[in-house]
C-alpha cells in the first residue's frame, strides 16, 4: 500500500514537474514572439486569391434563378461581409492617396477607406439580390492579407470565362484594379479597421445560351511580385470557380 502510494506520489511529482517545465518553456518561447508581427513571414511571400461567398460545394456556385431559397445564403453572406464596407462603418477611416503605397511609421496605424460603391453593380446598393435573381450573380474576389506585402506595378484582377461565348464577365472596380493605397498591411493588432481591397465579378449569361454554366478564372496581373502560376499552389494569385445558373 505504502509502495503504491510512493509510486503514485512519484508520478504526481514527476508529471507535475514535467507539466511545469513544459509550460515554462512554452511561456519562454511565447515571450520571444512579437504579438504585432510574426517572427517569420517566409512561408507566405505571395498572396492567394479567394472568392466570397463561400460556395456550398467546393468552388461551385449552383443556384436557380426562380428559386430564391437557392441563393438566399449567398446574399446573406455577402450582405454581412459588405457591412464593414458601408460608408457609415468607414467614417473613422482615412481617405488615402490613390495609386501609391500607403506606408506608415506608427505608432498608430490608420486604415484606408474602401467605399462599397466601388463595386458598382455588385455593391448591393441598387440590387439587394446581387444579381442572383436576374441570373447575373456577383462574386467577390479578394486577395489574402499578408503583413508587409508591397505589390509592385499596378496590380489588377483579371477574370475570364473559360467557356467561350456563354457568358460575359465584368469586374468592378473597372479592370479589376487593386489600389496600392491599401498596402502594406500592418497586422490585426496594429492596423485596426483595415479593409482589404475587393474586386467583384459579375457573370451575365447570354440570353440565348441554353447552357447557363461557366467556369471563371481570375488572376492577379500587372504586378511583378505577386505570383500567379505556381504548379503546386492552385490558389496563389489565382482562383477558378464555376457558376451554374438554372432557370
Amino acid at each position, binding site marked *: 500500500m505504502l509502495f503504491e502510494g510512493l509510486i503514485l506520489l512519484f508520478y504526481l511529482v514527476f508529471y507535475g514537474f514535467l507539466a511545469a517545465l513544459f509550460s515554462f518553456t*512554452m511561456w519562454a*518561447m511565447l515571450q520571444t514572439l512579437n504579438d504585432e*508581427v*510574426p517572427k517569420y*513571414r517566409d512561408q*507566405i511571400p505571395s498572396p*492567394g486569391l*479567394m472568392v466570397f461567398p463561400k460556395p456550398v460545394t467546393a468552388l461551385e456556385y449552383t443556384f436557380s434563378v426562380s428559386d430564391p431559397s437557392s441563393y438566399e445564403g449567398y446574399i446573406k453572406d455577402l450582405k454581412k461581409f459588405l457591412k464593414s464596407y458601408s460608408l457609415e462603418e468607414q467614417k473613422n477611416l482615412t481617405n488615402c492617396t490613390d495609386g501609391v503605397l500607403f506606408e506608415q511609421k506608427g505608432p498608430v496605424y490608420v486604415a484606408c477607406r474602401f467605399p462599397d460603391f466601388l463595386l458598382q453593380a455588385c455593391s448591393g446598393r441598387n440590387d439587394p439580390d446581387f444579381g442572383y435573381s436576374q441570373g447575373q450573380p456577383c462574386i467577390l474576389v479578394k486577395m489574402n492579407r499578408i503583413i508587409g506585402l508591397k505589390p509592385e506595378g499596378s496590380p489588377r484582377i483579371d477574370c475570364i470565362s473559360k467557356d467561350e461565348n456563354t457568358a460575359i464577365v465584368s469586374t468592378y472596380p473597372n479592370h479589376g484594379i487593386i489600389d496600392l493605397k491599401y498596402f502594406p498591411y500592418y497586422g490585426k*493588432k496594429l492596423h485596426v479597421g483595415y479593409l482589404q481591397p475587393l474586386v467583384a465579378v459579375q457573370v451575365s449569361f447570354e440570353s440565348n445560351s441554353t447552357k447557363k454554366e461557366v467556369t471563371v478564372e481570375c488572376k492577379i496581373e500587372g504586378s511583378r511580385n505577386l505570383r500567379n502560376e505556381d504548379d503546386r*499552389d492552385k490558389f496563389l494569385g489565382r482562383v477558378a470557380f464555376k457558376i451554374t445558373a438554372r432557370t
Partner: protein
Amino acid sequence: MSRKTLEIYSVELDGTKDTKQTDQEDDKKYNDLDLKKSHQKEELKRELDLDDHKLTSEELEQKYGTNIITGLSSARAAEHLARDGPNTLSPPKQTPEIIKFLKQMVGGFSILLWIGAVLCWIAYGIQYVNDKSASLDSVYLGVVLALVVILTGIFAYYQEAKSTNIMASFSKMIPQEALVIRDSEKKVIPAEQLVVGDIVEIKGGDQIPADIRLLSSQGCKVDNSSLTGESEPQPRSAEFTHENPLETKNIGFYSTTCLEGTATGVVINTGDRTVIGRIASLASGVGSEKTPIATEIEHFVHIVAGVAVSVGLLFFIIAVSLKYQVLDSIIFLIGIIVANVPEGLLATVTVTLSLTAKRMAKKNCLVKNLEAVETLGSTSIICSDKTGTLTQNRMAVAHLWFDNQIFMADTSENQLNQAFDQSSGTWASLSKIIALCNRAEFRPGQENIPIMKKVVVGDASETALLKFSEVILGDVMEIRKRNRKVAEIPFNSTNKFQLSIHETEDPEDKHFLVVMKGAPERILERCSTIMINGQEQPLGKSNATAFHTAYMELGGLGERVLGFCHLYLPEDEFPESYPFDVDAMNFPTSNLCFVGLLSMIDPPRSTVPDAVAKCRSAGIKVIMVTGDHPITAKAVAKSVGVISASSETVEDIARRCSIAVEQVNKRDARAAVVTGMELKDMAPEQLDEILANYSEIVFARTSPQQKLIIVEGCQRQDAVVAVTGDGVNDSPALKKADIGIAMGIAGSDAAKNAADMVLLDDNFASIVTGVEEGRLIFDNLKKTIAYTLTKNIAELCPFLIYIIVGLPLPIGTITLLFIDLGTDIIPSIALAYEKAESDIMNRKPRHKKKDRLVNHQLAIYSYLHIGLMQALGAFLVYFTVYAQQGFWPTSLINLRVRWEKDELNDVEDSYGQEWTRYQRKYLEWTGYTAFFVGIMVQQIADLIIRKTRRNSIFQQGLFRNKVIWVGIASQIIIALILSYGLGSVTALSFTMLR
C-alpha cells in the same frame, strides 16, 4: 550433410584417447536400458537389423550380386546407383529458401504493416471512387509501408543467409575418393558413386567410404569413437565375432577412420542407409528447442503489437464517435500503428546478433544459428566433455617419484622448462631410461617446429615421454644414436613391460645397459635394488612401502603411473658380440635396479581453471561428462575446479570420517561423481534430485547416449543447458540442448550439424568467452530496445492529440518511418558495441521465464518517463514553428478541420494574415520536419542515457564506444540530408528548416 573434413587426427590425438579407460562395454550395447525412455531406442534397434556380418563371402556375393575378385560390372554399378542414389548423407531437411524468405515477410511486425499498407490502398480506392482527384498521399504511404516490410524482410533474410553461409563454407566438401574393384580392375572413384556390392579396399588413414563387410584384413584398426564413443582403436578382421553388428569385428562403418593396416570389404549400405546416416537422420528428428531470444522477441512483438492494435482500435472508435469520417479514422489507425511499431528494430536485432556472432567467431565460437548467440548468455548449466575440451587431449608427464620424493612436472601447453630438482644422480639414470626405453620418434622434417607441436609416431604415453625428455635433455634422437639399441621387447599386455638393451655412450665402456619400463608393480617385482640419490641400495621393506605410498598417491590423482628400472650387464658375461635374443630372453630380466616412477595425465588446458571459476561466479553450473574412469574424472575435475578444492563427495566424507557411505548425510556433500552404471539404473526423479542437490557434478564412464538423459534432466530443472559433444552419438543431445556446442577439431560432421555452435579450438574457455558475449548482447539488446521504444510515445502522441484536440497534424506517417528506419538505425546498432558493464560475469544467469528482454520496468521507463519527455520536447518545437510563422498555440486548437479543407484558401492566422491550402500544407510539413528533428535531437540524448543501465555514464566512459559517436553523426547527417536535400520531394513531406 557433408563428409567429415576437419579430421586432424594426427597420431598424437589418436593415441591420447586411450587414456579413457575402456569400461564402456556395458554402455555401448545399444539395446540396454540407456535409451529406454526415448523412442530412439526402438529406432536404433531396428536399424541394426543387419545380418551381413553373419554371412559367408559366398552368401554375400549372392546377396549383392557381386564377385569378390572381379567386383561389380560398371553396368551393374550404374544400375545400383540409379536405384539407391549416390552414397552421400542427404542434408538435414531444410526449409526451402522461398519459405524462409516469406517467413521474414510476414513474421514479427510485418503483418501489421502489411495490413496498414492494404488499408491505405483501400482508403485511396474509396476516395478515388468518390472523387477522381483524391490526393495520392495514402497511396504513397501504402507503398512506403510495403517497401519497408519488403526491405527489412530482404535484409533479415540476407543476414540469416549470410550466417548460414559461414557454416557452409566451414564444412566445405572435400571430394572423397574410394579405391574400388570394378570390372576386375582397381579404380579410384569418387566415394559418392559407391554402390551396394562394390568391393572396396581401404588402408590406414582412409575414411571408410560406406558401411562395409570386411572380407580380408591385414592388421586393420579403426577408430569408432564418433559412432560408439569408444576411444580405443578397434581391430577389424573378416571374422564374425559378435551377434551385434556394432560389436562384431567384420563390419566397418561409414565415416569412421581406418587407423592402420589394410582391408578389403564389400559395400553393404550406402548413404542414408548406413548406420551413421540413420543416426544422423534421427538427430534431426529430435525437436530443436526454441531459442530463448526468439521467445523473448516474440514476447516483445506481442506486447508492442498488442499495444499498437488496441490503441489504434481505441482511437478508431473515439475518432468515429467524434464524428470523423470512417475513412479518416482508418488513416488515423494506420498512423497509430505505424507510430507504435518499431519497424527498424527487428533488423537492428539481427544486425546486432550477427555482429556478436562475428565477434564470437574471432574468439573461436562459430555460431550457426544467430539466435544461439544470446542463448549462450543465458546458459545456466554447461555439460562439458572432458577430453579435449577441459583437457589438452594429449598425455603429459605430471609427476615423478625418485629419491623417495614426488616431483611435479609442468603440464602446461608450451612446457618450456621443467623446474624440478634435476641434480640427483637418480634423475640422470631415470632420464636415460625415459629417453632410451621408448619407441616413439619425431616425424622427420620438423626441425623448426616447437617441441610440443611436433608430430610424433608412437602412442600417446610414449609421445609424452619423448617430448618430456626432449625438453629436458635436448636431442633425444642423438642420445639414442649414441646409445645404440641392440635388442628390444615391445610392450604387450601379458608381460606389461617394455625393455630394450643399449650400448653405453662411452666407447670405452663395454657394458650393455638394460632399460625397462612398465606397470609399476610388475617392474618392482623384477627389482632387487633401488637407486636413492644415485646410489644403488637393496630394496628393503621401507623402500617398498615408500614405493607403494607414492604409487597409490599418484594413482589416486587419476594418473597413469609407469615404473622404470635398469641394469648394467656385467661385461664378462655379456661381451660386445653377445647375441641377444628377445624370444629366448637370454639376458636377465630380474634383479634389476628400480629407479623411479613417473605418472602421466591428460593435463587440463591452462585456461580452463580460470574459465570454470568464471562460470562459478557467473552462477553457471559446470557438469563434466566423460567416458573416463571416475578416479581420473574426479582428479581432472578437481584440477580444473569443476569440483572445487573445498568440496567433498559423499565418498570423500565417508573416507575422512571412516564411516560407511550410507551413513553420510548427503546434504553435507556438495560434489558428486556419478557413473554411467549408476545413471542407468536411476529413475528420472533420482537424477533430478542429484542435479538439484549437488552443485558440482561429474558424470564418469558415461556413454554418449546418456548425455541426452543428463540434458533432459537439466532441462527439467528449468535450466538453459549448453552441451558439448563431438561424436555422432552426441548429436541427439546436442539437438536437445538449448545450445549444442560441437567440437571444431575433434567433432564429427553429424555433431556439427546438430549443434548450434561450433567451438573451433575445442577449448572450454572459449565457451565462457561466448557466455560473456551472450550476456553482453542481452544487455545491449535491452539498451537497443529501450532506445527504440522511447520515441514511440513521441511518435504516437501527435496522432492522439491530433484526433482529440484537433491540432494540425504534428508529424506525418512517412516522416515517422524516416525516424524508425533512417536516423535511428545506426545509433541503435551502435549500442551493440557497448562494452560490458563491470558486473556482467558476477551475475546469476538470467531466468528464462522471469528476466524478460522487455519487462514492464523497461516499458514504463521508456514509454512513460523518457518517451513522455521526448513527446513534450517535440511538441514544444512544433508549437514554436507554428507560433513563429503566425499561428499561436491557442489558435491551433480545433483548427484541424478548416486547416485541412482543400477549398479553403484564406485561413486566418493570429496576426490577421491569410493562408492558402498549399501554404498551410507547406507549414505543416515544416512542422513535421521540426517535430522530426526534435525527436532526433532528443534521441541523441536518449542514446547517451541508454549507454548504461547500472553504471554511471562516467564509469562507463563517454568515449569508449566510438561507434556511438558514429551513430550520432549519422543521425545528424541523415536529418540534414532529409530536411535540406530532399525538401523538394513531395511524397516525403520534408521542408527546409531555418
